[in-house]
């Protein structure tokens, strides 16, 4: 996957990963992909909700070692 920008939200708690993600995605052009790494377990559900509301699909996600990685395509 062609990742345009990476965002490190490790150590941040609700709602910072969402706020930072929104800010980062605003700078991208349509179709570009943002990779977000977070450690907040709550961000899994929250990122889904944010994605549904804003129309920026999560095209892939994985987790391991207490980290959650999201690949978000700007819609």
């Amino acid at each position, binding site marked *: 996957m062609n990742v345009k920008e990476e965002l490190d939200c490790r150590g941040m708690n609700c709602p910072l990963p*969402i706020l930072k993600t929104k800010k980062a995605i605003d700078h991208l052009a349509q179709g570009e992909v943002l990779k977000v790494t977070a450690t907040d377990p709550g961000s899994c559900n929250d990122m889904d909700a944010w994605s549904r509301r804003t129309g920026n699909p999560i095209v892939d996600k994985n987790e391991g070692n207490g980290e959650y990685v999201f690949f978000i395509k700007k819609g």
Partner: protein
Amino acid sequence: MATQKKLMMIASRGSLDWAYPPFILGSTAAALDMEVSIFFTFYGLTLLLKDLKPKVTPSGNPAMPMKMPFGPKWFQGLNWPMPNMIINNVPFFDSFVTAMMKKTFKNKGVASIPELRDICVEAGVKMIACQMTMDVFGFSKHDFIDGIEFAGAATALEIGSESDMQFFL
């Protein structure tokens, strides 16, 4: 994309713990492309002051867990029951509890209140100060941050009637 939703909140309390809900929900709603208005009234009005120093008091919040933000994990997990005698009589106990709570928030990666308020301003959250409260508590407009509006109950209700969600905090 879903149709744009509108959120309206009335923030009526100004302590550190109650400063979080309007600013967390406001900034997050803006990040979800919602249109957000917050009406700050009574003690909530102090959240719009330039000099933003919200405190928290355990005497008003008897269910508050009393835990330490430092030391090994087992130590941080301990609860320190505080008799009212101490909570109400030890000088500066509220300042101590406020400092502990701020430290805990910081350790857990939670944004500070000034940080969240800045994000709300930047994201275009509409903030309205209650004119009546300002007069009652003797504040003047230059005590408050820039970019806010001053209005009363009718304005709050009009915005509420046009919103999808209305929260009273």
